[in-house]
């Protein structure tokens, strides 16, 4: 057993309102640059829908992920190493800009600069690729909220598949349709096919936290990873000629902050925590013959952080105590393994994805309510989950390689939680038969409710900080964890204030940010040793240190807070 730690995310789809805040904040943080205009490390898709890039789930076409070869061994869908090297001069199946969309901006300048005339000036759309006038015909979520689904809905690969298997049952008639949002980031897989396809070996998994990153200095632009990733979550920066991907906001994570998408999520539906897993068994788990067993196999890899044997093995591997503690309190472990309500996205790609989803009960509830039923009554709900085959089949294609048993099990637990809690809230008393019906105790069900519904900040995010003593430098050259808690910075060195080693900005920024986000009010003055980081200044008041000190009367020190 080789225990490794993995930082993972769970998203509770019932709560996603499809506001795209996560996508926008992520873009502002990471891909607000030339060359990656079309890149969305985080995107939110309406399902049913084609997704981004269009129809990425159709692996017959895009050939991402792994399959089992004739001998039952795990192999990249694009073929063996030699074959892939021979096709390196022109990737056979790389999506083109057309499959994403042509990014554009508007010619806002003419609004200001246009000479006086009879016509109103117009800001025309300009392509960010050619700089010429363009026509906007598609974007990253053109089919948002089922827009155009009556015409294009059949292009969703999953709709196609479910239709094929159940003889045309999905109809996009308004009264029978269902819809939910699926926010997606890179899955930071345990068995990443992007990494396996990279000829240069530039993509790596961090040993400490399992985050998958592209080494920008070693990427040579062979673009094999783009084909390799079945989720199409590696993008090609057409300006620098390098591959880029979601970083799990590692500079934030290293100081204990959640990712930007999670932090800003309006629905507060994202959970971040640590898994302990057995790295030695990953390949074995990814090669189970029946696709429907992949979910169980993946769940099996996740080790019980309370198990003394696991703890001992983890210690031996040098996983620090606070990481083990975080693993015990991990919300993702609780949702995935304890309550078994979180499922991996497309386990059939065999990459062992580490972003998990609590499937939405809302398609069922909404349909019930629209038909005038009591959508909280356990009997009705359970019955509906059995009866409404289409949403269930669709969810099963997404999360369990088509195994409807697992999905309806999860939905049953969620439905039971709904009914159980209604009883408690309406003072009808806790009906212990409801949790029992889905094999849970009332106590566990209540704890699950707290985690899913109340979702306190520090219960959603249990993120241990990066460790210096594991023998590696933190993120910057010459930076040691003297900086651990922020202060210590700007201490005058031998030759006056500006001497000594520079303070790494990232450390300063993120520590200050953390301080501000986890405390009430604005950050205390001591934090910055009399200086203010304008990046973190929220515009409230004049924090001390914003302006240089005059020989002011005593008492000025405290600022105007």
């Amino acid at each position, binding site marked *: 057993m080789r225990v490794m730690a993995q930082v993972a995310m769970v998203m509770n789809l019932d709560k996603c309102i499809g506001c795209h805040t996560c996508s926008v904040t992520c873009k502002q943080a990471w891909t607000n*640059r*030339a*060359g990656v205009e079309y890149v969305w490390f985080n995107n939110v898709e309406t399902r049913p829908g084609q997704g981004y890039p269009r129809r990425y789930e159709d692996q017959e076409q895009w050939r991402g992920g792994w399959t089992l070869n004739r001998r039952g061994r795990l192999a990249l869908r694009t073929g063996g*190493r*030699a074959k*892939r*090297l021979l096709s*390196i*001069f*022109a990737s*056979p199946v*790389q999506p*083109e*800009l057309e499959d994403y969309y042509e990014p554009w*901006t508007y*010619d806002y300048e003419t609004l200001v600069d246009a000479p006086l005339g009879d016509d109103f000036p117009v800001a025309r759309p*300009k392509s*960010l*690729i*050619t*700089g*010429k006038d363009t026509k906007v015909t598609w974007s990253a979520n053109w089919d948002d909220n089922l827009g155009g689904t009556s015409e294009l809905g059949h292009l969703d690969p999953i709709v196609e598949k479910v239709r094929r298997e159940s003889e045309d049952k999905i109809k996009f008639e308004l009264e029978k349709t269902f819809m939910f949002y699926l926010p997606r980031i890179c899955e930071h897989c345990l*068995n990443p096919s992007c*990494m*396996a396809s*990279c000829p*240069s*070996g530039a993509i*790596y*998994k*961090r*040993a*400490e936290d399992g985050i998958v*990153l592209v080494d*920008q*200095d*070693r990427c*040579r*632009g*062979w*673009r094999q990873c783009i084909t390799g990733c079945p989720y199409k979550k590696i993008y*090609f920066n*057409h*300006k*620098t*000629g*390098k591959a880029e991907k979601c970083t799990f906001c*590692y*500079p934030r994570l290293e100081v204990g902050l959640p990712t930007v998408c999670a932090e800003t999520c309006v629905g507060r539906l994202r959970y971040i925590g640590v898994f302990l897993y057995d790295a030695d068994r*990953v390949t074995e788990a990814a090669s189970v013959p029946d696709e429907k067993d992949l979910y169980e196999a993946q769940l099996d890899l996740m080790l019980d952080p309370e198990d003394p044997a696991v703890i001992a093995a983890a210690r031996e591997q040098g996983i620090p105590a606070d990481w083990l503690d975080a693993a015990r309190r991990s919300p993702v472990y609780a949702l995935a393994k304890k309550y078994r309500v979180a499922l991996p996205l497309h386990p059939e790609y065999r990459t062992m994805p580490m972003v998990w989803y609590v499937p939405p009960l809302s398609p069922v509830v909404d349909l019930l309510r629209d038909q005038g039923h009591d959508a909280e009554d356990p009997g009705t709900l359970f019955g509906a989950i059995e009866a409404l085959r289409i949403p269930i089949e669709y969810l099963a294609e997404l999360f369990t390689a088509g195994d409807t048993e697992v999905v309806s099990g999860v939905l049953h637990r969620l439905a039971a939680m709904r009914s159980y809690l209604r009883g408690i809230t309406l003072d009808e008393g806790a009906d212990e038969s409801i949790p029992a019906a889905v094999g849970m105790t009332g106590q566990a069900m209540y704890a699950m409710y707290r985690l899913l519904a109340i979702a306190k900040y520090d219960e959603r995010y249990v993120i241990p900080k990066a460790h210096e003593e*594991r*023998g*590696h*430098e933190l*993120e*910057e*050259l010459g930076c040691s964890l003297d900086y651990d808690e922020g202060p210590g910075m700007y201490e005058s060195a031998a030759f006056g204030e500006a001497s000594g080693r520079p303070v*790494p*900005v990232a*450390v300063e920024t993120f520590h200050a940010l953390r301080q501000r986000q986890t405390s009430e009010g604005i950050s205390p003055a001591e934090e910055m040793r009399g200086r203010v980081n304008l990046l973190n200044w929220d515009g409230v008041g004049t924090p001390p240190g914003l302006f240089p000190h005059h020989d002011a009367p005593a008492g000025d020190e405290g600022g105007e807070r």
Partner: protein
Amino acid sequence: MDVVLWGVLPYLVVVTFVGGLVWRYRYDQFGWTTRSSQLYESRLLRIGSPLFHFGLLFVIVGHVVGLLIPEEWTDAVGVTEEMYHAGALGIGTIAGVATLSGIVILIVRRRRTGPVFMATTKNDKLMYAVLTSAIVAGLATTVVAFSQGSDAHNYRESVSVWFRSLFILRPDVEAMASAPVQFHLHVLIGLALFALFPFSRLVHAFTAPLHYLFRPYVVYRSRDRRPTPGASAPRRGWDPVGTRDRDPSTRR
């Protein structure tokens, strides 16, 4: 003049080539890429690029054999001058034509596809010009040899001798000077190409990922030591979005 061209120039080129590569590798890892344009267009690329690259691989093998293996050696194993030339001309022509048509397709694509042309830098244009002339001049030597039949100049007694003499630091200037003008031209353009090599996108050839055949699929690495993007002055790749960066006058 001959001494400058065939005795001094080659060494200058070697210094630029090696020095340039070392410099680029140490200081510009981030710029070391194929800068693929497949995202913009892939139909023509899928024909042109393999044609060019595979053709080129054969051309390179041909050059290595022709330049490095002394005539005496092939004679010793019983390969006559006629046999050798027939083979070299045959394979050389096929490879050369494939390479040339490949690069012509790529250049046409580059010029005709708007986004690809936009992404073409001055450096690229210069590189394409030199590369294409090198290929054309090389093919020209072959064509001339064809037309002269058995009277064709035997470059293995001139160019190859000179080439090998470079390595022992006693350049045989006379041997090279005695070769016909088409060879002079080809060699000079070739030298220009090598001088340009480290400073163009051609460098990607030096990181051809052969180790891919041997490395494990999953790569674990410990946390990075380099500064994070937010922690350093903006680097390449962090330019703001806008149409300005598409403007040739402000583009890098």
